């Protein structure tokens, strides 16, 4: 099967991107190098092509009830101009995919999906949505998505648009022109930094990317690839579908219970998720840090006293924090920070311990306090 290409493919080649197969697409894994790109996003800004992600338009009177049925978050609480992180859940509360739902109008929504899952998501929606799924339209081929991420993002983008970016708060969006290209500008991202995701018609994407890079280069903006996207999201403890979340791990187990709103009414997987919330889960996704040298990677075994304990779902060397970090599902009674275990790296057990997450919180943003932990400390 030949690899699919985004509208920025020619630009990536021109800019020296190293193109690799990813989820059926030919995508740039790096331009100047993963570490320098990662640091540019933490300190200035980076521009990612994420046009491989899927975009589904959901419109009409069936749209809201359909999305309420398919996702655990409460879509009715979205007012037009806001978006929410959510999931397509299985009957057992696992992830068909993790998604972002935008509400554009009373009966108009947009769902952004992972590239590798778009076709399966559509099949799932049609299977589980029945005739209501006729209101879902796949816009992925005609839509490009650019992610401008990093502390200089707003200053760079503001030079190219009349939209007042300061008024677009986190997980909100506005529709308007950027560099003369009509599109949707949302404040969100997958890096742990401030930034925007900009959705535009595919045939206008290359022109927009060039204008962004021109406007941003004096501010330190660089082209960034999927390699840095992965290390950035890991530092921010953002889950990657296929690694950290999948059909076999529930939303509650993935420590994403905040997207589950059981009071909104029934949805696929609700029964399981409600029981898990009330009675607890047997395993949970936690962050850990290696206490000795080495790099933990996806699939490496985790042991305690030589006994199997779990496995690494994501791991790597964190370029900004300069630590070896990872995520893993551990037994629920062994998830507190300080819990010690070993990661087996090519036969060698390396000490590690659970640490609070996210590993990285950008300056000026407060860590969310976990209610449960605060309550326990008060006792």
């Amino acid at each position, binding site marked *: 099967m030949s690899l699919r290409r985004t509208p920025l493919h020619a630009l990536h080649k021109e800019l020296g991107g190293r193109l690799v197969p990813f989820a059926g697409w030919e995508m740039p894994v*790096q331009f100047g190098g993963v570490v320098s790109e990662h640091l540019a996003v933490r300190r200035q800004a980076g521009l990612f092509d994420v046009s491989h992600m899927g975009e589904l338009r959901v419109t009409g009177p069936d749209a809201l009830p359909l999305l309420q049925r398919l996702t655990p978050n409460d879509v009715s609480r979205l007012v037009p101009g806001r978006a929410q992180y959510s999931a397509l859940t299985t009957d057992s509360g696992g992830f068909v995919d993790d998604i972002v739902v935008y509400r554009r109008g009373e009966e108009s929504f947009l769902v952004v999906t992972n590239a590798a899952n778009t076709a399966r998501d559509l099949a799932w929606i049609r299977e589980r949505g029945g005739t209501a799924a006729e209101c879902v339209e796949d816009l992925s081929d005609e839509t490009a998505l650019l992610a401008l991420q990093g502390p200089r993002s707003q200053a760079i983008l503001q030079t190219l648009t009349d939209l007042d970016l300061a008024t677009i708060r986190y997980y909100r969006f506005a529709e308007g022109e950027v560099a003369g290209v009509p599109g949707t500008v949302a404040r969100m991202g997958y890096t742990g930094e401030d930034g925007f995701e900009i959705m535009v018609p595919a045939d206008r994407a290359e022109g927009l990317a060039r204008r962004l890079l021109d406007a941003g280069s004096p501010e330190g903006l660089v082209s960034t690839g999927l390699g840095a996207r992965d290390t950035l999201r890991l530092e921010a403890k953002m889950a990657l579908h296929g690694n950290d979340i999948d059909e076999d791990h529930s939303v509650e187990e993935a420590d994403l219970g905040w997207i589950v709103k059981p009071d909104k009414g029934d949805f696929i997987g609700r029964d399981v998720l409600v029981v898990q919330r009330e009675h607890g889960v047997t395993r949970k996704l936690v962050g850990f840090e290696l206490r000795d040298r080495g790099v933990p990677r996806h699939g490496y075994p985790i042991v305690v006293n030589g006994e199997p304990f779990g496995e690494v779902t994501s791991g*790597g060397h964190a370029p900004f924090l300069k630590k*070896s970090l990872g995520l893993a599902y551990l037994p629920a009674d062994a998830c507190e920070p300080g819990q010690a275990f070993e990661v087996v790296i*090519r036969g060698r057990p390396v000490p590690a311990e659970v640490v609070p997450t996210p590993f990285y919180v950008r300056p000026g943003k407060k860590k969310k306090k976990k209610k449960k932990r605060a309550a326990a400390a008060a006792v």
Partner: protein
Amino acid sequence: MTPDDLYYSKEHEWLRLEGDGSATIGITDHAQQELGDIVYVELPDPGSALEADDVMGSVESVKAVSEIFSPVAGTVTAVNDALEDAPEVVNSDPYGDGWLIRLRLEDPGSVAGTMLSAGDYDTHVASEAD
């Protein structure tokens, strides 16, 4: 440019004969480019005996881990400890300060017959790219 005073393996290691029966070994510029930013280098203990094609260590970049094979047989006499704190030197100076280990060779005379010249190595790299 691939230095022509070194020998090469198909697994992208280089070897320099030091004239005293020992050799210095590292990874090639092509290898470091393919790996990307190197963040961790694992090397054998001095004194270890290696056979040809034994795994002698590993080099990890942000993207992947790659095992390093000893191209020849010998005993490890030194390892580049400076890489512990500065693994990125393998990227910036693969044929110089980014060297990995020094071996006392079991059979220094066999190197020329078993390893590639710079020209043959370049041909090998080009064929891998096809």
